[in-house]
């Protein structure tokens, strides 16, 4: 085969969609920065405590020791607890709750949206009424009520966040399902008498996945902000350290000491920033048409 023919063949070879998306994702600088920050945060919070073994609840030194003094890198909080230990261990529960809440959010959202968009008619009408109802309830207030009534623990917090934030995922899924259900390949699946369940989960859902993946990534960020907000208001598991809890515990001392609230805030900020950069990158990679606009 001549060189020209080989080149021609190479041009014809079609990249798989996943490969193409990945290539576009890693060629996006801000997405790479986001991924790097996120990896770093995961590594420090999950490996860090194995190396740095100070107990985050132990009173190690005088309260409100400024950063760097007496050998405490980030200083101590209002009780005299080490902030480095608090940040490392606290990150684990913040990230875990964020991830769990995002899974719950997306699961409820996809289920509601898929059923409404696929069946239309009264199912759609009823489910959209429920969605509209959840959209008028201020999410943080409802989450506060839920967590207060059912005792604060990591599980109730994750569920409360999921219950108050699934509506936008549901609307997105519904719109995608309404569009895709009219396409040829869905009609083809129906014509070979595939069951409704099969069409919903095996035919339409995989094709609706790209925007849902982006929405899932962004909802991790929102969930982390939510967990932090609830902990700040004092709705956190008393026995588990988290970034929001550190800020909430040290709230009365903010004018005396800036560091106990600033460092956890920076940690939350960086995590959510990283997640949202990754989400934007995924969006560009998975919806190339949108990007060119």
């Amino acid at each position, binding site marked *: 085969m001549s060189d020209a023919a080989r080149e021609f063949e190479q041009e014809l070879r079609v990249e798989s969609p996943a490969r193409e998306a990945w290539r576009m994702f890693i060629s996006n600088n801000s997405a790479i920065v986001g991924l790097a920050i996120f990896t770093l945060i995961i590594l420090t919070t999950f490996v860090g405590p194995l190396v740095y073994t100070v107990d985050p609840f132990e009173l190690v030194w005088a309260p409100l020791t400024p950063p760097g003094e007496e050998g405490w890198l980030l200083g101590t909080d209002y009780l005299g607890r080490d902030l480095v230990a608090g940040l490392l261990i606290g990150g684990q529960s913040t990230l875990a709750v964020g991830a769990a809440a995002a899974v719950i959010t997306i699961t409820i959202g996809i289920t509601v949206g898929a059923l409404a968009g696929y069946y239309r008619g009264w199912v759609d009408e009823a489910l959209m009424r429920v969605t509209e109802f959840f959209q008028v*309830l201020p999410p943080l207030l409802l989450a506060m009520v839920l967590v207060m009534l059912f005792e604060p623990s990591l599980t109730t917090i994750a569920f409360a966040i999921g219950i108050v934030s699934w509506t936008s995922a549901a609307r997105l899924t519904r719109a995608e399902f309404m569009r895709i259900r009219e396409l040829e390949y869905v009609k083809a699946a129906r014509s070979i008498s595939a069951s409704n369940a099969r069409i919903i989960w095996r035919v339409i859902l995989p094709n609706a996945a790209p925007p849902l993946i982006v929405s899932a990534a962004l909802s991790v960020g929102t969930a982390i902000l939510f967990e932090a907000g609830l902990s700040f*208001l004092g709705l956190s598991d008393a026995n588990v350290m988290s970034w929001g809890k550190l800020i909430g515990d040290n709230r009365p001392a903010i004018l005396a000491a800036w560091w106990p*609230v600033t460092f956890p805030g920076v940690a939350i900020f960086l995590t959510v920033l990283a997640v949202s950069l990754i989400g934007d990158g995924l969006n560009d990679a998975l919806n190339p048409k949108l990007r060119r606009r």
Partner: protein
Amino acid sequence: MHIASVLIRRILNAAGLLAAVLILCFTLIHLAPGDPAEVIAGEMGGATEEMMAEIRALYGLDRPFHVQLLSYLGNVAQGDLGYSFYFNQPVTDLIVERLGATLLLVISALLLAIFLGTFLGVVAARNPNGLISHFVTVLALFGYAAPVFWTAIILLILFASVIPIFPASGGMYDITGPDDPISRALDIAHHMVLPVITLSTIYLAFYSRLARASMLDVLGSDYIRTARAKGLAEVVVVYKHALRNAVLPVVTFAGLQFAQLMSGAVLVEAVYSWPGLGTLAFESLLRRDTPTLLGILFFSSMVVIIANLLTDIAYRLIDPRIRSGAR
């Protein structure tokens, strides 16, 4: 005629939503472990089984669920949301006292975010690769990623402690200050600056990005080319012809996000001790005062529903195509 029939439908829908919120509130009280009788008994410092039964009978807690629900709905229709044992006041009075402060904060923040956000977005759209455009992108990322209570604390530390130009004590006004209307209004404005800026940051970021995208879209359309072709000044084209269409998505989102805005207000008020519903929610949370917290949930949902209704009307006023029902 169209507006009237649409309005009636909307108002009926809003009433239905409100009833649903009430049923949710009531069901939540019932689902929660422990009943109000135990709370009252706890307040009294313990009670025997007979006394508990007496309390239940006194407050009608021994009646079947649907009877209690109906009487609760009837009470709310008469403006009675229950009694707060911690504040020793009817919940409705407590909320009405504080609702004004929250609305002042939320509406100021929303207006600031809409106007400044639209302005930044328009300036950015006129020069998509300019400095302002990059600033809008960075602002949008920051506004999304920074927890609102943390922004509040940082601004408080910076502008009330490091550079003391705003009151560090928080609150709405200085009770020791002069109480003639003008000085009081100025004092409130002084106390408002930081909370309003904090609360508007998130939305400012979002609206500027939205206005930028929407403005870019509109500036590329045919009628703008026509307006330029007939020799109109650039300022007139941008701010009179394009802006009216470009601002539509901003208005829609502003209305839809009122629920989030009320959520943000809870956190901002808690930091600045702003005497509104958010601080009340925070206090009733600390005291586990369920009737008050549910009352706040109900009232803020009502505010959201009314805001949605007003957005709908505003939308119709801005866009004549919807007004004439030609959609």
